[in-house]
């Protein structure tokens, strides 16, 4: 069985995989990094979003072997080494952008990719960008609000409580 080598959150990661081993399964089962989640089998829900070489990717729709030599970023790498949450994570906490938390890693990773490409997105741009991220708990209201807040935009006019 082939070996795969990649960098995950800045650290070298290696493992023995099958051809059919998905990147998400390599992360979760071989590396024990269970922050990335699997919520569907048709590549739609986005709970599995990670970054591969700086681009948002659905890790359930990519084989581990295809990430050979790649730099992979997962939600586990978003907070600082001392546990301080990233701006996006803190915004999700502050604005109640998560309830059960299952979709949240994918939302956070998609948000990070969005804000890298579009630092001050409009509400419509945020909603459009989340086309591939499904949430069943929040109704998206506080997720969109959190992402706009994380981008430094004023969200005080968005109805809260």
């Amino acid at each position: 069985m082939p070996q795969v080598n990649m960098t995950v959150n800045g650290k070298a990661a290696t493992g023995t995989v099958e051809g059919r081993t998905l990147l998400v399964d390599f992360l979760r089962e071989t590396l024990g990094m269970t922050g990335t989640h699997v919520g569907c089998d048709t590549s739609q829900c986005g709970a599995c979003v990670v970054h591969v070489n700086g681009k948002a990717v659905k890790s359930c729709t990519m084989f581990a072997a295809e990430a050979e030599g790649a730099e992979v970023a997962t939600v586990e790498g978003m907070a600082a080494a001392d546990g301080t949450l990233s701006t996006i994570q803190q915004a999700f906490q502050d604005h109640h952008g998560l309830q059960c938390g299952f979709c949240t890693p994918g939302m956070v990773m998609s948000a990070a990719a969005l804000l890298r490409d579009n630092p001050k997105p409009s509400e419509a741009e945020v909603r459009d960008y989340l086309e591939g991220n499904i949430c069943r708990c929040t109704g998206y209201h506080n997720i969109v609000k959190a992402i706009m807040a994380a981008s430094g935009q004023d969200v005080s006019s968005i109805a809260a409580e």
Partner: protein
Amino acid sequence: MEPRVAVGDYNRSTGDSTLYTTSQNPHVIRLLMGAFVLGIPEHKLRVVAPDVGGGFGSKIFHYAEEALCTFAAKALNRPVKWTCSRSEAFISDAHGRDHVTKIDLALDADNNFTAVRTETYANMGAYLSTFAPSVPTWLHGTLMAGNYKTPLVYVNVKAVFTNTVPVDAYRGAGRPEATYQLERVIDKAAIELGVDPIALRRQNFITEFPYATPVAVEYDTGDYVATMDKLEEMADLSGFEARLAESQAKGKLRGLGVNCYIEACGIAPSNLVGQLGARAGLYESATVRVNATGGLVVMTGSHSHGQGHETSFAQVVADMIGIDENMVEIVHGDTANTPMGMGTYGSRSLAVGGSAMVRATEKIIAKARKIAAHLMEAAEADIELKDGQFSVAGTDKSVAWGDVTLAAYVPHNYPLEEIEPGLEETAFYDPANFTYPSGAYACEVEVDPDTGKVTIERFSAADDFGNIVNPMIVSGQVHGGLAQGIGQALLEGCGYDENGQLLTGSFMDYAMPRASDVPFYSVDHSCQTPCTHNPLGVKGCGEAGAIGSPPSVVNAVVDALRRGGHDVTHVDMPLSPSRVWSAMQG
């Protein structure tokens, strides 16, 4: 979004079985599976479900895979894990809300509602799931009076077996169905009679409480006028005409839908549901254990799968004592370290679970006051507790919470002849009644007349949840419920072909609402008529959004079509573009 998972484990040396499962109610699973399926006594069976990724009802029921994994682990003497794929979930998770209903509303010459008659066929699926028969009967029929003083209500429900996946409770469980039928027929009446749909509702509101409905339940309190007033203000209804003109200028139809809802939740009084045929009690439990250095652990029979109980429950207890919330830890989800509880569904956690916690904390405070009285050599009646300090009324003598708790576990200066050492109390709380949240919702939609596509332009929700513990969590629950109700109204539905084949077997065919399908919502819970029969005065808020919103959307779409010149009085959900377009073709 988390699919179901079960891990069975067996310890051969102790003979203990453990089941890790995505359940909303681990104790219920332990009882059902242990007593009725596998024959394992409860003390040899532990069920663990601490951090579940959402449930909404579909994770209440005892599923076969849980029993199989538990059984197999013992048979093989090794852990056995089953993970449901999303495709498997579509053919095995309980479905919800499959009713075919005919409803009639009778009015007198002055537009007062005189009677409601409803006949429903409710699909149970191929097998009866855990709560299935109660949903279209007791959780649906008893809401057919709605917010209105209709004197006569006739409800006939026939549950039927079919070849579909079993159908059981889903967020609202019977009350979305009841609200939908009633609020749709009221709107239809308004159209036929040529009266304003809001005025028609206001005229028929119940205004005196408690109100004994003709359908078994008694509403303790409410103020439907207040929530409708609040809604009219929030939704800027007077600005609708201008927005209508803007939509028309873009070639779109626009409609406004307004409706009320009431629901019965905070389930439930055990003797009442017992009389109705339930085989379960619906109390809740809490053990509050105070540690020597003053921190508390609350072991609750409630379950958190996104509701934030770790925050709201800690808030309640911390507020009662006057200490920092960080000193209160909430433990849930493991039958090994929580008292027997019925779990989380039916918007019951704060109303019932929270009340159990309050009662247990009251016992703690009562005992702590005795200890404080002893420490300060004062009469117990003179002890006051404020901001974590016990003081003697009228003096400057006080002792801190932490001193009292330490004394309980180091009882040297302690009334041992009157009370035992330690500071740990348990309470089981059986509610006296359901609770009755209610509200008024307004939805504005645009309809593209060429394609039938509906977009939600505005959604306003004025809810009365009684007292509010954590406003942000409450709003979040309403947001999520609204999205599910909008999803039901416009997008979602399990389709089967004539051979019983499930057509909607994945998200490729089962349409889930995305962020771009909904706007920011405008929600309000400032109208508060506290629940009269639980210590927190709370009514529960988890399901209301999903209950009140489907008729809002459908009322709005029908309104849009009618304003656009189409003589349509009803379209069945989901109002997919193709269905709306077909309705417009006449």
